[in-house]
């Protein structure tokens, strides 16, 4: 990763790749909005939701859970030693949610009507309504939570001080809203028991989605920390660098425990629904890969890494866990969804759908770099030391 701000010119390899992705993304965007969803996707009547929902929405929201996880542990549960991790986590969460909403515009037939459920006709019996309401509210909360970074950068001390006073209330809002919409994303599939494979379908889907979002949040803080250290090390202040190791081990330990609990409740669910027989099938094998390779294994790696004080191992575990979250969301929304349909009617994404997702991720990274190289995210603003 190259810093866009350094003096060695704009044409660094990182910037060139970024530029190409952004250009291709712009072309696909043009096609999508002039010729329709059918022109750029393999979505069909049987498969109305593809990776724009499975990855951009479900994974995007889950992986942005670092915001509520970190701010809650620091401000509500009194773990002040994670303070330096809060700003980067809130920043990525805000960007994550913002771009989830941006990505949603590609998937919606009438993107401009996105505010309809909020202002025109409230479909309160729909879990998607709950998701929409919570995501819209939480995006606002995240924006306010994140704004001190921008306000310090702009030197607007008065507004900044007012916002900082709201921290505790905003954090509580954030946890309530996250509990609701993280779980509701799982609950979206409750209405389709006949379409989702029994190993993944459960009346506890909302609980599974919420619990695994904590894993996603904890792991993403570690994983993003790894990336930021690689590319933006020079932007970090002494406190951030000093606390970074504590964050890695503290969050790693928490993730290990949550993953173990998640493994346990998932197993209990198989027992409650008596789905054991399915484990012998092809889908069963795939389910076991998810459970052992991407739940049990990262839990173990985290535990080992924390015990041995091995930063690299914890980082590997975080990648393992993040991949596990992506895998789970893909399984629920795509792989195990419509499992009854013949192979010919199943969905595989069009390259332009993947192109849009890559475009969105690149946008997030680019904007994060812009913010982190300018605003006090990875360091405390010298004028506002210990003020928050």
């Amino acid at each position, binding site marked *: 990763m190259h810093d866009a701000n350094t003096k060695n010119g704009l044409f660094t390899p990182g910037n060139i790749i970024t530029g190409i992705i952004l250009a291709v993304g712009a072309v696909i965007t043009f096609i999508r*909005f*002039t*010729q*329709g*969803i*059918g*022109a750029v*996707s393999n*979505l*069909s*009547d*049987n498969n*109305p*939701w593809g990776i724009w929902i499975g990855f951009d929405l479900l994974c995007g929201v889950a992986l942005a859970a670092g915001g509520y996880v970190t701010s*809650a542990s620091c*401000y*509500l*549960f*009194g773990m002040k030693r994670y303070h330096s991790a809060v700003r980067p986590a809130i920043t990525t969460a805000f960007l994550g949610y913002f771009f989830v909403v941006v990505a949603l515009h590609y*998937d*919606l*037939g*009438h*993107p401009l*009507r*996105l505010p*309809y*459920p909020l202002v*025109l*006709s*409230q*479909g309160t*019996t*729909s*879990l*998607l*309504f*709950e998701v*929409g309401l919570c995501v819209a509210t939480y995006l606002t909360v995240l924006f306010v939570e994140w704004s001190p970074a921008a306000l310090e950068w702009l030197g607007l001390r008065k507004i900044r001080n007012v916002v900082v006073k709201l921290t*505790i209330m905003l*954090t*509580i809002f954030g*946890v*309530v809203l996250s*509990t*609701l919409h993280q*779980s*509701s994303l799982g*609950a*979206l*599939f*409750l*209405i*389709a*028991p*006949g*379409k989702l494979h029994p190993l993944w379908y459960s*009346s506890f889907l*909302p609980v599974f989605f919420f619990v695994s979002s904590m894993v996603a949040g904890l792991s993403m803080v570690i994983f993003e920390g790894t990336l930021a250290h690689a590319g933006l090390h020079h932007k970090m202040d002494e406190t951030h660098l000093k606390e970074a190791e504590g964050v890695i081990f503290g969050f790693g330990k928490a993730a290990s425990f949550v993953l173990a609990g998640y493994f346990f409740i998932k197993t209990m669910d198989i027992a409650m629904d008596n789905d054991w027989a399915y484990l012998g099938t092809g889908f069963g094998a795939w389910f076991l890969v998810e459970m052992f390779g991407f739940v049990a294994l990262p839990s173990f790696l985290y535990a080992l890494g924390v015990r041995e004080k091995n930063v690299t191992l914890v980082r590997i575990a975080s990648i393992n866990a993040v991949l596990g979250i992506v895998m789970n969301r893909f399984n629920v929304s795509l792989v195990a969804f419509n499992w*009854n349909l013949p192979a010919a009617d199943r969905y595989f994404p069009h390259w332009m759908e993947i192109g849009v997702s890559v475009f969105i991720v690149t946008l997030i990274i680019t904007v994060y770099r812009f913010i982190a190289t300018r605003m006090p995210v990875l360091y405390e603003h010298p004028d506002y030391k210990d003020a928050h």
Partner: protein
Amino acid sequence: MNRRRFLTLLGTAGVSTAMSAVGAKKAVAAGNQSFKGYKDSYGVLHDTTRCIGCRKCEQGCNEVNKLPAPKVKFDDLTVLEKSRRTDSNNWTVVNKYNVAGLDHPVFRKQQCNHCLEPACASACFVKAFTKNPDGSVTYDGSLCVGCRYCMIACPFNVPAFQYEEAFDPLIQKCTMCHPRIQEGKLPGCVEACPKEALTFGKREDLLRIARDRIRNNPGRYQDHVYGELEMGGTAWMYVSGAPFEAVGQQEMGTKSAPEYTAGALGAVPMVVGIWPVLLTGAYAISKRKEKVAAEEREEAVQAALAKARDDAAKAMDTALAKAAKEKDAAVTREVKKAIEQAEQAFEEKFAALRAEGQSAESGDDGEGKEDA
């Protein structure tokens, strides 16, 4: 009983009657009751033993709903060789099933089943779907955001989307010819069917007809009316000679779609109500811990300070005492020294005088002088 007392009693009775009426109405909503559909709503009974797969219903649907002309003409029956589903231009399709143990194929028509409690309407976050009192489920495209959650939710895979439409893509599905029913006409497909495989009527009557057919024709039908209870009941119902699974009709369970999501939706106000309390509690605990820790730290510091002060005072006292002692000792020593010196000086002087006297005694009377 006087008049006033009578009126009071009357009034009380009236209020309590009114209260119980309101109460009873509310209790229905919260009680152990289920919605069995609008009374006198319509439906259609599809008898697959009568269907010959002529596709006239598809044509009828296409014409009355003014759908785009088909790529393959409706009298071309070769399309039946491939399994099809409803799409944005075809709101109903007939499929052919070769069922094991039967010497002839079975044809089954599919379209929207018009659930009594529709999954699509329950899933729609802008209330674009309406379950009408006539039994039909209709859709208002002017509200639709195009999220396609209705398509995810529909257990029968009915709603279709206009993926090729760039600017106004909408959901398309059978309306049970709601506008025609309002005019007193039959749905297009029912009117077009030459074999009376489709019967339009009140749902309750259709159920009775279906049961009569099953009872009066032993061996001809499966003993089941598909749609009577499936997904909480549907307006379109089916009787079949072949097992329903064999003609592509999955077992559904009898729960209506909203029952699957009611629990999760009901948890929302619980989370909103209790989470802030618990979280504020967690905050208060951590804050209190910090405060106690700070107080303890302060106390410890104070204690240490006090001890240091005490120690210092003690040391000072000792030092002072020692100093006083030393001073005394020094004074004594000095006095002693002075006395000693004085004594010594006296001795020396005395010795000198004595020596002088002795020498004078030898000359004049030195010794006597001294004695005096």
